Every structure is written in C-alpha cells, then in structure tokens.
C-alpha cells in the first residue's frame, strides 16, 4: 500500500507503527497532495516518542502537528511548513530552516535553529547550547533561557531571548541581531551591546505578537557584532587570544 493511499484514509499517523522513513514519505506525499489540490490540511503525528529525524526535508507547505516529544533534527531542511510540536525536542530543531514556522511548546536541546536561513522558530521553553549557531537568516524566538555559545558565528537574522543566556553569547558573530531580556553570563568574542533604535522596538513588537510571547520590547537589550574580527592584525595578540 503506497503512502499516498494511506493519506487519503488518514490525516493522523501513529508513529509507533511506522519507520521514520515511512513517516517522512507519508508527510512528503501529504505536502505534494496539498500542493496539487490547493488545500491546506493539518496532518498529525502521534506517539513520536522522541524519535529522531521526523519531518525532515519537506520543501512544500504543509501544516503539521506533532503530539509529544521529538528527538534530534526534527523539521530540519524544511521550507514553508507550519509545524506545532506539543512537547520538547532533542538537538538540532529545524536546522537550516528555509521558510515557514516551527513552534515548540516545550524545551529544545542543543543547536536549535542552527544555520537557519529563513522562517520563524518559536521555543516556549528553554534552549540548550549553541542555539542559533551560524544562523543565516530568519527569526528565532526563545521564551526561556539559552545555553552557552548561543548565536556562535551568526551571519544574519534575528534572535530574541526571553530569559538568560549562558557563556559566550553571540561569540564571533558577523551580522544579525540578538535581543536579550535577561542577562548573559558573558558576551562572546566581539559581541557588543548597542542601543536599541525605534526600528528595533517596532520589529520586536511585531515579532513578539507573532511568537505569542507576552513581553515588552523595552525590556530587551540589543547585541550585535563589534566588527573587530572582520579585519584584524595578526599582531593584535589580545584579539587573537579572545578569538581563540
């Protein structure tokens, strides 16, 4: 029985009865079907049981709800999906997300949103280490705390952190903006706090509403690159030392 046939009968899949490959093929078929008939069905995954690699590589729009905790790399390499996860997740949530939204009700492991290029990721709980590392675009919102080296080598995009941050926030970031409501244990190499502008406040107001996050823009501080690492003299030992 092909997965397309299964989909015609079901909008809900019990993960416990299928391999990860079958689940992802079923989701891809669902997305293809939705594109063909112009519909926007919501499909539901049940009993995910912290399974790794769920809903990866979906390149056309689909509304997905996952009822329970997911494992590593959920929603990785996706574009245009609208996902709600009623649970926590392991490492690498929505890595390299190109577009669409991923909303996590629980907490995330390390490297959530790493290398994301577009779209919106919302984490209602906390996120672990290396959150948003090497971000290249899009918006990442964490209601709670983030772990160490968050925003490491971030290149573009916006990160909004409602809680506190671990060590080395924004280490060696090139571009992109980090908004932090709580405190960071320390800022990473060449990450500096700058004044908020009116544009920042307007943007924050809009995104906070979108992320269903009840917070005031005025409570955030802004961190961005000091751009001292763009060009530096190898003789500048102090910068070298910090950069390493």
């Amino acid at each position, binding site marked *: 029985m092909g997965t397309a046939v299964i989909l015609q009968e079901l909008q809900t899949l019990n993960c416990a009865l299928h391999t990860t490959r079958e689940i992802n093929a079923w989701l891809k078929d669902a997305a293809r079907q939705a594109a063909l008939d112009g519909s926007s069905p919501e499909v539901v995954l049940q009993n995910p*049981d912290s399974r790794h690699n769920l809903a990866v590589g979906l390149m056309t729009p689909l509304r997905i709800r996952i009822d329970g905790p997911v494992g590593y790399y959920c929603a990785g390499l996706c574009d245009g999906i609208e996902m709600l996860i009623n649970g926590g997740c392991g490492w690498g949530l929505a890595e390299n997300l190109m577009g669409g939204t991923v909303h996590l009700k629980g907490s995330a492991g390390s490297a959530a949103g790493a290398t994301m290029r577009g779209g919106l990721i919302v984490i209602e709980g906390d996120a672990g280490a290396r959150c948003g590392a090497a971000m290249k675009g899009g918006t990442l919102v964490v209601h709670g705390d983030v772990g160490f080296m968050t925003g490491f080598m971030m290149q573009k995009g916006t990160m909004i952190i409602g809680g506190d941050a671990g060590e080395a926030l924004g280490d060696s970031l090139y571009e992109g903006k980090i908004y932090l409501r709580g405190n960071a244990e320390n800022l990473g190499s060449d990450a500096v706090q700058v004044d908020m502008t009116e544009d920042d406040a307007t943007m924050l107001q809009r995104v906070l509403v979108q992320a269903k996050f009840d917070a005031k823009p005025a409570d955030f501080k802004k961190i961005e690159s000091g751009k001292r690492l763009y060009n530096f003299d190898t003789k500048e030992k102090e910068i070298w030392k910090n950069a390493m």
Partner: protein
Amino acid sequence: MCGIAGILKLDGHGTSPIGHDLLRMATCLQHRGADSAGVAVFSPDNSEQAHLQVAMPLGAASPNAATMLGLGAGRIAQVQAERGGFSAALLEAEALNGASNGHSAPGDAAFIRDLEESLAGGTISAMGRTMRVYKAVGAVEELAGQIEDLRGTHGLAHLRLATESRIDPAHAQPFWGRPYHDIAVTHNGHITNYLKLRRGFESRGFSFASHNDSEIIGVYLGDKMEAGFSFGEALEAAARELDGSFSFIAATAHGLGVARDPLATKPLLYAQTDDTLALASEPQALYRVLGSDIRIREIKPKETRAWELL
C-alpha cells in the same frame, strides 16, 4: 555516539526492579550504539561478602570449576558460571576491605594481576560487595534474561558505538574502577589525555582490563576517594583533569554522580520524582521509567553533581 543511562531509588529501597528499569531505558537508547551493551546493578543484598566477576574473551570457555578454585591463591570460592565468564566470592573480604572510606581494597592490585595472568585472556570486570556488572557484545536484548529480574537501589547502563579499541566484553561498559570495590562508570565521549593518565597510574602499579579510554574514569575517581576526596570532590577533580568530550555517570555503593565537559557535545539529561532519579542521553529513556509528567533538565557544561542514597 553511545547511549548512557542511570537510575537511583532515592529512598535506598534495595528491592526496586533496577534490572527491569535499566533494560527499558537501554532498549529505547539502542539506536545510539549496538556494538556492545552493559549494566551495573548495585544491591545491598549482595553486601555480606565481596565478590568478583570475570569476563572471558569472546568464544573462550571459562576454566572448569576445579581449576577456578585453584586460581587466585585460594582466595576465591563459590564459583558460578555466568554468561561469558564466571563470578566468585572473594574470601577474606573483611581484611581486604578495611580502608576507611569503604571503596578501597588494599592488596587487590597484585591479586588482580596474578588472577588475570592465569585466566588465558579473561579479565575481572567487577569487584565489590554491592555491585554486579553484566556485559554483552551486540544489542542489549542479549542481556535481557540475565538482568530483567535484578533488584537493587541503583544502577547504570551503556550502549556502545565503538569508535576506538576492540569490540569484546573487556571493552564493553560500564567499566569497573579497578581495583576499587563498588565503583562503575558509564561514559559517552573520548578522554584525550587517557594515555598520559594511564601511564601515570601504571607507574604506580595499577593495571587495566582494556585499551579503552573510558576505563580511566572509574580508576581516577577511586584513586581520588582513596586519597580522601568525597564522591562530589572526586567528580569535580575529574571534570577539571580529564580532557576531551565526556558526559559520564559514575556509581558507588552510595549513589550516582555525573560530570560533563565544558563544551558539552555529549548529551546528558535527568529528571527526578519523589522517589526516583533517572539520567539518560535521550528523554524517552526518562519517560519510560518516570512517566510522561516529568520536568526534564540537562546537566550543564562543566557541571558535576552527586546524588547519595538516603
């Protein structure tokens, strides 16, 4: 990758189904490593007499009972065949176990060396009063029959994805912190200053059962506790002195402890209810034994922690 897990009944109830719980946790972590599996179970019911367990090389038969009784200079008795080896009572346990902190067994280093020399490649995989270690090459279901009914207060599990050193019972985890009684460690990661540390211990007369870097951790902890460190202090020292990537769970007769390296590239989560603490590489193992209504937390980078039995 490797999967690690630990469970502790905080009330010190020695009849808890630790073997069953570890099996459930290990089964859902199986995808993290299928080269070998192992558990360590601590039970005060075993505490009357010290014992040892021997793992024979794959495919090698244990010596027959009469031969075994002749081994170890008359210090072993009540030899029982186990899967892949045998166990035996260790005589004169009181005299051997007389050190102040209860972890040490003076004189055992020489005893271990002599016994292993007569074992044709067999290695002692555990020694102590409360600890039993069971290991198998392959998936954890290989161990199911042996561990399902084990009861105790706490225990460890390991699923190995081998990235260095041999795949055989001697290189399976949890590792015993030889020669110290009742210390075991389950580790995910690599200890990069292992050879340097090992040479230091060898120059002091210590021997090792394997060429696996993880074996150093339990030895290190035992050595520190022998020198008067508390369990928590020994874990702090290990986190400072070990180099590489590590998330490990250590167990003594009195509880569990953890340490994580500063970069925290190996996962370690935990959750606690009124009577049970559980630790694991991935959350589903915690849900299996504690139910879905738990708050899961992560051991932080550089963090060490110890939980003692009441």
